[in-house]
């Protein structure tokens, strides 16, 4: 019995390096061998609300997609940006991208390139989407978009004047958009969109953000100021699954290219790794507590 107790006490005092090694294994193995761990993903209410909001939009509606994330959070947010863009393009919605972070410009470029390269849709720049350039200022840019977008942006990312782009006709302020979707990893992010643009002008807003940011955004979600939220990689995986099912169920769509395979996104395949890693962390916590309890009893 004492031997068992000693084992548990030692299990609660593991070297950090061993913990790091085990966590690394728990993430690597499911990624390298996805067939070994295949856990079905069930959608949550917040992700379903986001899907429903975007699904209720009509062909020709204008959606502003804000890219406010960078290289470090790309693995978490990029899959949801691809899924959102696929969903929007599949409905024939006009997409306007605006980067609020310097790296957001590249993230928007990568996302659009990936969607175009998938060959699911025949989308053309200035007919189906417009990419606005990056401007420094954060919340000031959001406020400018809210009141007069032309005072902030005169050209698109390829230096073509906005007045020469037919898709920009009638787009002067935030109320000219039917929906705003914010992909953010920090500041400026969804809170700034609520405070400076969407809540004031009553434009519907939804957001996808990192898991860490969800606690900051949840009060806005609960009050309805943000309509649903995609929370980190689990949210991205859930949305990918919904879009995957939606695209597969689309029949006689004039927008979707036939014979192009529809593949689920990257977040779906990464969820197994995250599941195992989380389970391992919980096991560590339990072992730590058992060790703590036994150590306390021994000291008493």
């Amino acid at each position, binding site marked *: 019995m004492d031997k068992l107790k000693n084992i548990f006490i030692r299990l609660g005092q593991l070297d*950090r390096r061993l913990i790091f090694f085990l966590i690394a294994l728990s993430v690597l193995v499911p990624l390298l061998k996805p067939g070994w761990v295949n856990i079905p993903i069930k959608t949550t209410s917040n992700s379903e*609300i986001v899907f429903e909001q975007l699904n209720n939009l009509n062909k020709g509606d204008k959606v502003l997609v804000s890219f406010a994330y960078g290289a*470090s*959070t790309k693995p978490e947010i990029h899959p949801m940006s691809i899924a959102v863009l696929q969903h929007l393009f599949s409905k024939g919605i006009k997409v306007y991208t605006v980067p609020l972070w310097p790296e957001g410009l590249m993230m928007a470029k990568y996302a659009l390139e990936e969607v175009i390269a998938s060959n699911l849709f025949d989308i053309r720049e200035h007919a189906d989407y417009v990419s606005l350039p990056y401007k420094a200022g954060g919340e000031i840019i959001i406020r400018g978009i809210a009141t007069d977008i032309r005072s902030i942006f005169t050209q698109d990312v390829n230096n073509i004047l906005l007045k020469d782009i037919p898709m920009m006709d009638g787009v002067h302020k935030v109320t000219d958009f039917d929906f705003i979707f914010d992909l953010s*990893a*920090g*500041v400026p992010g969804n809170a700034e969109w609520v405070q400076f643009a969407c*809540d*004031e002008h*009553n434009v*519907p807003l939804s957001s996808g953000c*990192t898991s*860490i*940011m969800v*606690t*900051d955004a949840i009060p806005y979600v609960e*009050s*309805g*100021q943000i*309509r649903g939220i995609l929370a980190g990689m689990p949210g991205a995986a859930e949305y990918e699954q919904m879009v995957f099912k939606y695209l597969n169920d689309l029949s006689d769509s004039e927008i979707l290219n036939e014979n192009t395979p529809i593949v689920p996104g990257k977040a779906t395949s990464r969820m197994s790794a995250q599941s195992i890693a989380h389970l391992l962390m919980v096991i560590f916590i339990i072992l730590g507590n058992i060790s703590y309890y036994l150590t306390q009893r021994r000291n008493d």
Partner: protein
Amino acid sequence: MMNKYIKYIFIPSFILLFYFFFPLQIFLIGNETTFICIILLCFVVEYFIDKAKSGEKIYMRPIAAIKAMEEAVGRATEMGTPVLYVPGISSLDQIDTIAGLTILGHVAGMTAEYEANLHVPVCVPIVMETAKETCKEAYLKKGRPDLYRDDMVHYVTDDQFAYAAGVNGIMLREKPAAIFFQGKFYAESLLLAETGNSIGAIQIAGTGSSSQIPFFVTACDYTLIGEEFYAASAYLSGSPEMLGSIKGQDYVKVGCIILIITVFTCSLLNGYGYISFDILSLFRINVIR
């Protein structure tokens, strides 16, 4: 007494009446709630500052993190290792950075007094300049300008995670005995705090980023949570004016609590049909139905 009535009742009432009933359109529409809140808060804070200046003793509950700051600097002095001060990763447009720099002024004063080394790696160049001035003046004020070195405060990089990597490297090489995280932090907070924990340093954190507070609470010895962080500089100075402002802030918070209870009770009564007035109509709420 009459002066106080004029100053704290008549003047704010006059300002509010002027704002709402002035015939000419000199005020922007849509900011009424903000204006009322700002006026009320400013005058309440001003009232308590006045009371404090006139000699009234103000009780401040002890905040462990603030009391530990001097201990931490003392520990670093005894161990002969530097004090590492991380003022966050945002620029001066964030109030958290300014609050962090005001605390830096006090900590720099302590390091001057104790003759401990101070190391302040910064993420934003403009913060570097301000931090340099703050430290220089703090050392001068303590009568130890000889101990101030220009390379005490230096720029690392603008990038969030590159900065975290740089600061982690500093921690692992220099092994400071005391680490202060005071400012605006994002995802790199846990990277910094865990590294500091691994070297056995005493860590005191304070931030206004509510999502990072749990990470600091988990990994640091002391954490200033929420408004404690903003009150810290006032607490450290100890001047009656500053302490009075904290008391005023607390009374405004009591007002907020009363307002929340009122709105809750009214909406509950309205929901059950006891009153017809829907208090929620006063607020703009976009609820998905």
